[in-house]
């Protein structure tokens, strides 16, 4: 395993902040499972990209985008419970992805390997992370309000359906960016765990979202550093570090 380099760290910083920040809003919406399922939807895309020698980010984003369109349409056009459909998407994608992923690449697709990141991947991840943070900040008021009450939001002029759609696109972008680092099986953890840890520490929205971003950052950097030191795969270590933050936050919230 190659040693730690600046590109990995740079990607870790930006993807960590962006996924922690975005994840804080997913947890508000009780969308933790959607995030988890979406990250699995990336798997068939990754596999197709590997088969056709395309940059895996684009493959992952393509199937993620198809996945969110599916979820968004289902939410808006039918009365079917989103949770169960998300379960369908998730298992279907995992099954299809597993079958078409080349055997040699399966571990990397599932658990990621940030040490294999190319310069182009790195720059793309950084730019997308910044874009995700800016757009999320812009829609955050309407998003929070429509989480509390759709009627209250609509009566205040918030375009609820549009905001939900933009939000799902942001989720797809951040999942596609983070998959190189932690893999499609564990990406869900990167958006969920920092947020729930932060929730235990904070009272208000401002601090909650910022601390979630900080935990996301610390989890990725900590995981990457540990992986380099222990000569292990970074993905699972990132998740272990963020889980450690969560355990500490539990102790705090018990006080």
């Amino acid at each position, binding site marked *: 395993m190659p040693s730690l380099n600046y590109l990995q760290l740079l990607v870790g910083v930006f993807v960590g902040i962006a996924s922690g920040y975005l994840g804080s809003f997913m947890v508000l919406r009780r969308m933790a499972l959607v995030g988890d399922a979406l990250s699995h939807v990336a798997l068939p895309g990754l596999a197709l990209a590997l088969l056709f020698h395309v940059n895996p980010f684009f493959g992952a984003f393509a199937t993620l985008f198809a996945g969110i369109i599916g979820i968004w349409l289902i939410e808006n056009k039918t009365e079917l419970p989103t949770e169960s459909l998300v379960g369908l998407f998730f298992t279907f994608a995992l099954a299809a992805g597993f079958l078409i992923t080349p055997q040699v690449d399966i571990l990397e697709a599932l658990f990621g390997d940030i040490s294999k990141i190319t310069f182009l991947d790195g720059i793309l991840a950084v730019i997308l992370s910044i874009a995700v943070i800016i757009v999320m900040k812009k829609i955050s*008021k309407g998003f929070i309000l429509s989480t509390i009450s759709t*009627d*209250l939001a609509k*009566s205040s002029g918030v375009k609820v359906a549009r905001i939900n759609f933009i939000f799902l696109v942001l989720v797809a972008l951040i999942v596609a960016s983070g998959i190189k680092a932690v893999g499609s099986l564990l990406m869900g953890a990167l958006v969920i765990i920092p947020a729930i840890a932060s929730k235990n520490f904070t*009272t*208000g929205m401002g601090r909650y979202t910022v601390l979630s971003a900080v935990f996301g950052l610390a989890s990725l950097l900590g995981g990457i550093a540990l992986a380099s030191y222990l000569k292990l795969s970074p993905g699972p270590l990132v998740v272990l570090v963020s889980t450690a933050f969560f355990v500490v936050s539990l102790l705090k919230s018990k006080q």
Partner: protein
Amino acid sequence: MDDKTILKVENLTVDFGDQKVLDNICFTLAEGDVLAIIGPNGAGKSVLFRALLGLIPYTGKVSWRKNVKLGYVPQKAFIEHGFPLTVFEFLSLKSNSKDEILRVLTAVGIGAGHEHEHHLEHHLKHHIMNRRIGLLSGGEFQRILIAWSLIDRPNVLLFDEPTSGIDIGGEETIYNLLHELQKKHSLTIILISHDLNIVYKYANNVICLNKQQICFGEPHAVLNPNELTELYGGKTSFYKHEHAEHEHV
């Protein structure tokens, strides 16, 4: 529409699929009116509100006076205990002005009263504004929602069961507050209530709703036992309230 009319509703009909939820509702509202909407569960009261606010599709006509500003307090806004949002942050979702937020909080009687003026801001800062909104009591939360609706000085307030989930003492206070606000700012108010005492005490017009419009007019003129029986299907306990000051169903 004449000068005094602020809202005119003509043949308003709402369908959910092949089910008629509201059928041919017609009424007008003058500036400064307090209109109560009464009716049993599932009568379409909240649906009428949502149609008036333009939140759902309908047929017929809902014409508000030009440039009218609506303030809306929904029946419930579910906020779990752990939702990380302070009162100040909640109100900031609607207004960027701290002065406006302080004004509406004062208007609903939070932190005001016996406090000295110069202590007011300090008090708000340390007590209400920075508390998690999910941890407020029912009455406090209701006041915050009313404060929300008062941001940007609306002309018309729509309250969906303003006192659901509040104890009787708190309920009285909320209605007194609404009454005061109405007088002070010459607001027009539309409220949904299940309590006929409230209707008699505060409303000058009432609509009885059970998918169709069963009555419309001044409470004392239109609320007779026959209408109420038709409305509630024989549950006349709604009517006898002469000495049951705090009774509500």
